[in-house]
């Protein structure tokens, strides 16, 4: 059990390591001639006005919120799914009710126009 997680940790470390090494190698091989015009941000040739990290549309925030709700609720369903072969009728009804609650959330968001892209 613990061995498996050790393997995963090694795998994650290596999969972070490989692209990092490749980019490091490219940084060694490539020329480095920075110039003020070259380094300026490319916004279709027009000079940048004002700061970049400004307030953004609340629409994106709304999608993040919806994602959070649905993903967390789905993750809560995974234990149900794993144990599904062993549970009796009561558990089945519980799963159905839980999914219906999820669906109700979806309908609520839909009725409130959360899915309309503006």
């Amino acid at each position, binding site marked *: 059990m613990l061995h498996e997680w050790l*393997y995963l940790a090694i795998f994650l470390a290596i999969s972070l390591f490989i692209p990092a090494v490749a980019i490091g190698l490219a940084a060694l091989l490539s020329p480095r001639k920075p110039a003020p015009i070259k380094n300026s941000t490319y916004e279709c040739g027009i000079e940048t006005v004002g700061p970049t990290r400004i307030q953004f549309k609340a629409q994106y925030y709304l999608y993040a919120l919806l994602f959070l709700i649905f993903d967390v609720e789905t993750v809560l369903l995974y234990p149900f799914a794993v144990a599904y072969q062993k549970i009796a009728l009561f558990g089945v009804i519980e799963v159905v009710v839980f999914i219906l609650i999820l669906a109700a959330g979806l309908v609520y968001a839909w009725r409130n126009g959360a899915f309309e892209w503006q």
Partner: protein
Amino acid sequence: MNLLLDPVNVIAEWLTRLMTGWGFSTGLVQFILFVIGAGVLSMGAMLFTVLLIWIERKLGGRFQDRIGPNRVGPWGIFQTIADMLKIFTKELIHPAGADKVLFNLAPILAVASVLALWAVVPFASTVIGVNINVGVLYILAVGGLGELGIILAGFGSNNKYALLGGFRAVAQLLSYEVPLAITLLVPVLLSGSMGMNDIAAAQNVWYIFLAPVAALVFFIASIAENGRAPFDLIEAGSEIVAGFNIEYSGLKFGMFYVADFLHAFTSAMIFSAIFLGGWQGPGAETIPLLGFVYMLIKTAVVYFVMLAIRFSLPRLRIDQMMNLNWKYLTPLALASVLLTAILDKVVPVSLMLVRVGVFLAGNVLLFLISDRLVALYRRGKEQERKIVSSPRPLAVSLLEPPAENQEVQP
């Protein structure tokens, strides 16, 4: 154990014996084997991308009635290597005002998120990186890491286009993660395990026959997760300048493409492991090498379909894409899970043929109902639209006084 039948485990055993002979402790031997295994697997995936890029470009050319790469080597097979050499020697430009850490971390995270998926993909009955008991959750979690890479790229570049592109990309990827997560419940529910190898091993009947609707939703969602056409709004070349990766150059830019190409193949692999039986096939249990071949064939078929879709369908608009996800795929995925949960208890596992029939019928019914609902919904929308914008009589408005014209329009 024969070297030809099960090469990976035979080599692993040989190495264990060799290192134990050198006097290493078992813990250390295990650790070294892990490092070698993980290194070979991820390095192999990385090198495999070189071939994948060529395949994709060549097939893409054929799909669109072009020749594709054909100059470097036979059939242009060394084209990617030439490109690689070129991109390695390109200057890495750091835009002024960019956040150094985030800007450099983003391409690494993008590739790492895809490479890390290979740890849980079952290649054969005995060959899998690691069969952890939460494999499906791991896939979802690591997939989220790629989105983090994209938002970091958009945020770290100090460019408004990159920031906008990053937001759009993450809105898309996050949205499509929802039906992906919900449909992944179906194979877990049917097999009773979250381990990828257990799911593959449990498929006496492929789950695509038991849950075709879930498979379809999963397939569409995984194409969208890749950010490929028809869902390539992430870097819609003709609309936003390049999206989140506009400020990247050299290999850092290339890394996003490596991640993209590898992700397409990896999700084809995950799809075939979850819905097409993975390494299952005649004789695969005893001869792991055969299982590997089956897995490769299935993955190639899924990958081919993905490419055919990529190179023949036009791009969706962003509101259409969001509508498709939230108003169609998500409810359909929920209904599919509900259907599977109920049918699973109604029809016992012992009556396999009846089970398959009932599941198929249920899924077809579900799909037809959803199709009917979409048609009704669309008709309602169309009537709304007709009232809003009846065609304006242009010629009339030029000839006649405007007062009369306003009466004509609702």
